[in-house]
């Protein structure tokens, strides 16, 4: 039997990169997915249809502006109206940024925090209502190794991910006795469209100090996420799993 047969997951930022890879692996394990992303995408719709046929699951696209609390609530209402369990929440969507703090507009900082931190908080607060009643659920927040790294240009993105980590760790203490685990993954540089934001003048810099010495493939991280979601991991709670092959 597939690992998540009959389960239902919400994945944000589902239409590309890591989110898309996670959707693919969840579907392969029998999980239905509500795929949240910003703009309608014919390409993703084709991808989703293929997964639906191959794995006999549903993959429903829901367009949500994660910078808008009202849009998030609308998206949640749509999901909640289906009266299905919400077993998994992957807060994956994020805005990447590398830039000197004093050269960054306040408006951009607010927008970045809205998507990277407030959106996961708002969506989690809504979904926890379902999970608490179910007495079961798994939440994974996609943070980043940037949350603990120190380098020029990282003050905004890095602080947003550090906040997401702190949120994960303390929230986990509130949810465990309701049957809900909350964990974070902290990948290093992933081989997706977003990675170019972090390369700066020297594309080798972000990977120079990792033992892996290359960008991580989205599927490699999705495989780890799938394992973390397993029932065998039910005692893993409030953890931050660094995924970069280690440092050298």
């Amino acid at each position, binding site marked *: 039997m597939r690992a998540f047969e009959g389960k239902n997951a919400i994945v944000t930022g589902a239409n590309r990169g890591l989110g898309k890879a996670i959707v693919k692996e969840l579907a392969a394990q029998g999980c239905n997915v509500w795929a949240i992303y910003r703009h309608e995408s014919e390409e993703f719709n084709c991808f989703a249809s293929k997964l639906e046929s191959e794995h006999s699951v549903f993959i429903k696209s829901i367009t949500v502006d994660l910078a808008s609390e009202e849009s998030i609530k609308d998206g949640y*209402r749509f999901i*909640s109206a289906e009266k299905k369990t919400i077993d998994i929440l992957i807060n994956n969507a994020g805005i990447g940024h590398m830039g000197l703090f004093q050269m960054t507009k306040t408006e951009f900082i607010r927008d970045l925090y809205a998507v990277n931190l407030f959106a996961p908080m708002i969506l989690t*607060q*809504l979904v926890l*209502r379902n999970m*608490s*009643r179910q007495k079961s659920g798994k939440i994974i927040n996609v943070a980043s190794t940037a949350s603990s790294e120190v380098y020029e240009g990282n003050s905004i993105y890095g602080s947003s991910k550090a906040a997401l980590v702190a949120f994960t760790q303390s929230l986990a203490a509130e949810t465990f006795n*309701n049957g809900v685990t909350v964990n974070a993954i902290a990948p290093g540089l992933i081989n997706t469209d977003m990675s170019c934001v972090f390369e700066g003048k020297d594309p080798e810099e972000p990977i120079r100090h990792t033992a892996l010495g290359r960008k991580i493939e989205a599927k490699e991280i999705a495989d780890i996420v799938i394992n973390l979601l397993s029932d065998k991991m039910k005692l893993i709670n409030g953890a931050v799993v660094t995924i970069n092959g280690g440092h050298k």
Partner: protein
Amino acid sequence: MTNLEKYNQAFIESLEVTADQLGDLKYQAITSWDSVGHMALVAAIENAFDIMMDTDDIIDLNSYEKGKEILNKNYSIEF
């Protein structure tokens, strides 16, 4: 069931109280109405009236009487 009966039932079942305790009931005034009990109460109210309460309303619902006020004002539930 009238709306008042549904509302009372939500309190009685989720907080394990009796009908005569309802009038003066306030959040954290009894052991069963702690934060966990509160979420169970909210779930019961939402199910009873088929509504989805806003987070601000959930937080503001701090007494039996206040709850009626909120449901009436924000969800058009008449008692």
